[in-house]
């Protein structure tokens, strides 16, 4: 069905179809619209989920963990400070191998108090064992959320998945949305280590130095296997519903001498910049990284690379730029742009590519 929706409403529509047994959430701008919509579905009787209005984000994730370990589907949504307040439980969810799905509306961290788009919140959770996907359109927010449940719950994965969408520039922007009838696209959840009241046990109890590392390795093993599961899920989604995605979304990269790498809405904006540059005769392409974890492998050999980081690791650099440097041994032109919702247009992005200085870092808008 073709409709018009905000990014938040698109996520809510997908979650409704995934039909989780438990939703536990706490409102926070700019994510509130998601949990409001979920509460509305439950109140109207359109969704049979148990909705738990908790007193904090830490409790939201704890409630999802408690529900998930009984073997049922769970969902929560948060943003920024809420995400970081969950930090301890976010680690626990992955360590306990619970396929919780969470929408995170990317927002900057205070102070200064700021409710606009930035990726540093999600990047601070990148080492927790969660899979993380970043979306760029309302349609993709919907599609990725549906796929997130299937990927998280796959027996070769059994790890939580975070769906990231940019605050306001996507969460509150209205675009056309085509909803689908998912049918049996998301199979029923079978959690092999679900609590069984007939056989009481301690879950995730004291695990000594002789055993702990084995469980850590199993997370990494599943993370590596998840690449295949993501590919299969996205392929099946394309076969059924006609929209295809990948670990990255490449745009006019085939013959590109220079590629711009960004995430979220900036990655989509970059495509307009590419068209602009192509008209000027510059062979440029765009690679929008969709999955932060597992991190993709990119074809960067022999190309200039411009990386736009909407995040920063103080005393180190743009996190995406540093990751690409480490993984692909390239010398990117590292642009720090869009922090706290800073306006970045396709003209600006085209400028980054034209004026690139490989190996250097540039803070957009800051006078040297």
């Amino acid at each position, binding site marked *: 069905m073709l409709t018009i929706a905000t990014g938040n409403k698109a996520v809510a529509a997908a979650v409704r179809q995934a039909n989780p047994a438990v939703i536990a959430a706490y409102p926070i701008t700019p994510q509130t619209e998601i949990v409001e919509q979920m509460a509305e579905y439950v109140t109207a009787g359109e969704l049979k989920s148990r909705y738990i209005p908790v007193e904090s984000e830490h409790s939201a994730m704890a409630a999802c963990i408690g529900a998930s370990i009984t073997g049922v589907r769970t969902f929560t949504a948060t943003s920024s400070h809420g995400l970081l307040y969950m930090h301890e439980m976010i680690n626990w969810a992955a*360590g*306990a*191998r619970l396929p919780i799905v969470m929408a995170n509306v990317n927002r900057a961290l205070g102070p200064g108090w700021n409710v606009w788009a930035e990726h540093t919140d999600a990047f601070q959770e990148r080492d927790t064992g969660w899979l993380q996907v970043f979306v760029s359109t309302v349609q993709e927010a919907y599609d990725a959320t549906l796929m997130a449940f299937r990927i998280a719950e796959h027996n070769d994965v*059994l790890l939580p998945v975070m769906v990231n969408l940019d605050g306001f520039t996507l969460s509150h922007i209205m675009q056309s949305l085509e909803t689908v009838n998912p049918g049996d696209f998301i199979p029923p959840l079978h959690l*092999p*280590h679900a609590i069984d009241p007939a*056989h*009481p*046990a*301690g*879950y*995730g*109890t*004291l*695990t000594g130095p002789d*055993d702990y590392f*084995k*469980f850590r390795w*199993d997370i990494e093993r*599943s993370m590596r296997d998840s690449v295949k599961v993501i590919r299969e899920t996205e392929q099946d989604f394309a076969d059924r519903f006609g929209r295809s995605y990948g670990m990255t979304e490449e745009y006019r990269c085939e013959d590109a001498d220079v590629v711009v790498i960004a995430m979220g809405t900036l990655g989509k904006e970059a495509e307009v910049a590419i068209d602009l540059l192509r008209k000027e005769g510059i062979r440029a392409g765009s690679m929008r990284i969709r999955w932060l974890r597992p991190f993709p492998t990119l074809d960067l050999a022999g190309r200039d690379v411009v990386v736009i980081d909407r995040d920063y690791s103080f005393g180190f650099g743009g996190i995406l730029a540093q990751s690409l440097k480490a993984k692909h041994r390239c010398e990117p032109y590292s642009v720090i742009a869009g922090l706290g919702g800073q306006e970045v247009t396709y003209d600006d992005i085209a400028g980054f590519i034209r004026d690139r200085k490989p190996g250097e870092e540039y803070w957009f808008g800051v006078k040297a």
Partner: protein
Amino acid sequence: MRERLARSRPVQGACGKTGSWRVFRPVVDREKCNACGLCAMYCPDGAIDEDLNVDLDFCKGCGICANECPKKAIAMEREEK
């Protein structure tokens, strides 16, 4: 079988007979006892049975039973060395 999460199942006596840790032993005065069962309910080791007999193989001598007993029917007596 692939284990994704460390799970431990309760096994009686997995740490050996923890009664050997005991310094004070609970002694029940059956004359004062009205068999309310609070001692068994509070015992953190489940070492008091339905007939309110203390399993001295596993009682660590914490004294919670004596403290909770409304009839003051349990005395904690020092174990002989």
